[in-house]
């Protein structure tokens, strides 16, 4: 493990991450810098965090900068994370929207979808409960990190990853062994679209979404950026759509056009009446 950065270097790195990715790192999250960037040091053959920061400062934007942003913005994830959102999705939200849409396909957006466990979880839930609608639905995965989107598209997971939260009957049904890894079957992979997106920058060309998952993402942004992101998400959503945030997240004082509601054991957001 590299020695920690001195305060000046840490401040420079925080400013860099905030400018390039709108990621807010404060002193309370200093541990993240060490845990997330240690593998990058090893990968790039750089001896210490100080040397890494010196390289970032010295050189114009290049692959090292991109790699640091990717490492810092990759969120740990698991299949069926927190369970309840997916129970609410299966039991209440999908039946409601499918009825309203007359059985047409749904557009579902996983913002900051990381390595794809959440979108594939949604794909499994949809496929299990409503196979006909699943075949007509799209799950849009966006992330700032190109590497995680490539992994999502490939649908390849290690044994340690499929051990995390994935019910064994789902593993057996929707995955195949490929060497030492587990490969998501084509029937789920074809439901997935991936696109690089920095949420902090206005986007275009996003379809009207029926359901949006942006869980444990807004916590990394300051209040003004949160307001801007949530406002733009609202404009990209159907008026009767559903918005999922992380269990500890809230839109209080962020966006008054969304109203908090409880569906099953989940708390989520709908457009205010």
């Amino acid at each position, binding site marked *: 493990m590299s020695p920690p950065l001195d305060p000046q270097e840490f401040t420079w790195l925080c400013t860099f991450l905030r400018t390039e990715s709108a990621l807010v790192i404060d002193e309370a999250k200093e541990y993240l810098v060490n845990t997330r960037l240690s593998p990058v040091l090893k990968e790039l053959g750089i001896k210490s965090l100080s040397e890494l920061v010196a390289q970032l400062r010295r050189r114009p934007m290049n692959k090292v900068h991109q790699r640091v942003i990717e490492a810092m913005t990759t969120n740990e994830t698991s299949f069926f994370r927190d*369970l309840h959102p997916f129970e609410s999705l299966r039991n209440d939200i999908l039946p409601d929207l499918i009825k309203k849409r007359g059985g047409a396909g749904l557009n579902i957006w996983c913002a900051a979808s990381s390595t794809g466990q959440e979108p594939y979880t949604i794909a499994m839930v949809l496929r299990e409960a409503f196979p006909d609608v699943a075949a007509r639905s799209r799950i849009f995965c966006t992330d700032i990190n190109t590497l995680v989107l490539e992994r999502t598209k490939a649908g390849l997971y290690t*044994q*340690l990853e499929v051990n*995390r*939260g994935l019910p*064994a009957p789902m593993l*057996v049904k929707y*995955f195949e*062994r490929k060497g030492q890894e587990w490969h998501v079957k084509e029937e789920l992979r074809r439901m997935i679209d991936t696109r690089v997106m920095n949420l902090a920058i206005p986007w275009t060309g996003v379809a009207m979404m029926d359901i949006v998952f942006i869980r444990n993402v807004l916590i990394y942004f300051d209040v003004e950026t949160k307001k801007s992101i949530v406002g733009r998400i609202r404009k990209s959503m159907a008026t009767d759509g559903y918005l999922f945030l992380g269990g500890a997240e809230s839109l209080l004082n962020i966006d008054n056009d969304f109203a908090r509601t409880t569906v099953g054991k989940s708390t989520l957001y709908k457009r205010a009446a």
Partner: protein
Amino acid sequence: MHALVVDDSRAIRSVISRMLREMGYSVTEAGNGREALDKLATGELPDLALVDWNMPVMDGFALLCELRADPRHAEMRIMMVTTETEIERMQAALGAGANEYLMKPFTPDALREKLGILGLATAA
């Protein structure tokens, strides 16, 4: 909540038992399927059994079949915890009545999440 941990490795039994106790479970340990059945005949009936596959005397699959053939254990949740990672093995275990399947090695988070799937994430 009470759990039965069946594994021929004392070290692995000890690691799993510690994880379960930290979640609030009381734990009984057995070194193979036969020992597990003997302990079940005289002791408290567990809510959950975590069962290794490859063990001497009586292996985990044989134990699974014995437990599922006994109506006294109909409510017991059974999770195979094993180095066997072939899909055919998983299908066989699920077909024989296992509720979950956890591949070794695993992290405490993975165990907690699997127990969450079974509705047993906390023993409180």
